[in-house]
């Protein structure tokens, strides 16, 4: 992104809120505040240091107001951009811009969702679309299923290859103590699970959990004096291609092609330089599409690429090391949790699932029905 300088800002604190099924009557703002408190503890800053506030949740139209009131702060910079699950990657770019310009000195990005305890339909009310709603698409599943149907038709991608994505995510989740899913999963189990929208069974689809968290960013300069090693923002890119699936130009090519290119340009890196990938896996087809569009394999090759455990813990390319939206946690707008995992991998804090010699990471966010794509490339001090 023109104007953003490689490495000018860093992520210095990260934390998840309570995940999974949270206590009864917790609000999304409770979870944001809890995440912020923990993330401040992670970097050694205090709430009084926070003068930039960025947040999004499907459960509060004016979440910025509610969160600022709750915390008792009046931030100099505030942004509650909401573009679906990728919102928080957009927030990273906005926070970096604000930090570069001196609009704030410490920016917090926060998310909270209680969709599991209150029910998904209450948490995320669908807008009526006269050109789609009469056909009763079960959104978002039906939309992603349409994209999968096109990928299968054009490139011969199989249900087994889609299932391989879910199995790899589960293997990573078994290495993550806070992952929702605790039992092994096989390709046969994915295929024989309850069908939701062909070709997806319930195991091709992300979890429905509560959750949230926070990410704290500051200038590269200030980041040097805090508790943990800084994780620098090397590249940001974004692309919006449509809102509704019937307006997506080509169902086999996502905006990740453009967002990735912009992020790589800013980072002066390419796919071959990236050590760990956190890709927004709301559905098994997502991982395949993003591996292609972010340049890890050719268009159409994604299905074959994920076979044989290549993206699983013992494979050659570590993808979705926390277990992903498929097996770790998916509170509805999952992007913030990808940023947290990428940061932890770069700090070598991931225990059994730690990727060795990890210096660069992609956190790629997806929102809507493949609608908004935002790529963030992060790196350690050594990559500056």
């Amino acid at each position, binding site marked *: 992104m023109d104007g953003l300088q490689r490495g000018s800002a860093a992520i210095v604190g990260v934390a998840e809120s309570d995940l999974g099924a949270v206590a009864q009557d917790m609000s999304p703002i409770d979870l944001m505040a809890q995440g912020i408190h923990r993330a401040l503890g992670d970097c050694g800053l205090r709430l009084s240091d926070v003068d930039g506030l960025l947040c999004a949740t499907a459960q509060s139209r004016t979440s910025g107001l509610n969160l600022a009131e709750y915390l008792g702060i009046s931030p100099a910079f505030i942004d509650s951009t909401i573009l679906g699950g990728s919102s928080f990657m957009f927030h990273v770019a906005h926070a970096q811009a604000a930090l570069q310009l001196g609009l704030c000195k410490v920016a917090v990005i926060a998310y909270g969702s209680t969709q599991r305890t209150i029910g998904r339909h209450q948490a995320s009310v669908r807008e009526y679309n*006269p*050109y*789609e709603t*009469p*056909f*009763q*698409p*079960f959104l978002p*599943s*039906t939309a992603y*299923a*349409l*994209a*999968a*149907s*096109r990928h299968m*038709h054009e490139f011969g991608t199989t249900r087994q290859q889609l299932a391989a994505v879910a199995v790899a995510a589960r293997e990573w989740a078994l290495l993550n103590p806070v992952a929702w899913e605790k039992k092994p999963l096989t390709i046969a189990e994915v295929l024989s699970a*309850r*069908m*939701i*929208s*062909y*070709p997806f069974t319930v195991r091709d689809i992300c979890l429905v959990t509560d959750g949230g968290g926070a990410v704290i960013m500051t200038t590269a300069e200030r980041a040097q004096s805090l508790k943990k090693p800084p994780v620098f923002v090397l590249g940001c890119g974004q692309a919006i291609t449509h809102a*509704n*699936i*019937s*307006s997506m130009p080509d*169902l086999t090519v996502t905006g990740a092609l453009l967002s990735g290119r912009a992020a790589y340009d800013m980072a002066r890196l390419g796919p071959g330089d990236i050590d760990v990938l956190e890709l927004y896996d709301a559905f098994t087809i997502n991982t395949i599409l993003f591996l292609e569009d972010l340049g890890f394999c050719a268009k159409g090759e994604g299905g074959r690429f994920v076979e044989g455990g290549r993206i699983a813990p013992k494979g050659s390319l570590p993808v979705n090391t926390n277990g992903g939206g498929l097996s770790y946690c998916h509170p509805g707008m999952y992007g913030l949790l990808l940023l947290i995992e990428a940061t932890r991998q770069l700090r070598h804090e991931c225990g059994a699932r730690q990727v060795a010699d990890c210096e660069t990471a992609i956190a790629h966010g997806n929102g809507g029905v493949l609608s908004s794509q935002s790529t963030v490339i992060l790196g350690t001090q050594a990559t500056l």
Partner: protein
Amino acid sequence: MERMAESPLAVYQAHLEKRELAYQWSPEANKAVFYPRLICPFTGSDRLEWRVSAGFGTVYATTVTHPREGAPYNVALIDCDEGFRLMSRVEDIGPEAVKIGMRVKFRVHRPGGDQAAYPVFAPVKAG
């Protein structure tokens, strides 16, 4: 721009009441526009002409959605021959028999009650 007497949706629905599938044409972009709107997404112009589709198209993408209760049903994206795409469903055959590339023909579905009419498709019979 002068004040609009009718919304794009109202014009579209009025055509459906006459068993017509309407779309818009952007003379400046030389392209079809769907869904109907006030401003052309290709040029930013407000010059959009209404046209009526011949009603033939090809299945671009398809899925069978399985509700918790009730029978599975088809949801498809149809590429109409005039160069626009819309969400719809293919009727007269099982939802799993709908295939990408299948030629289909438009007809109006009237759900009854206060629900507006909407376009559905059926396979074009061979020969």
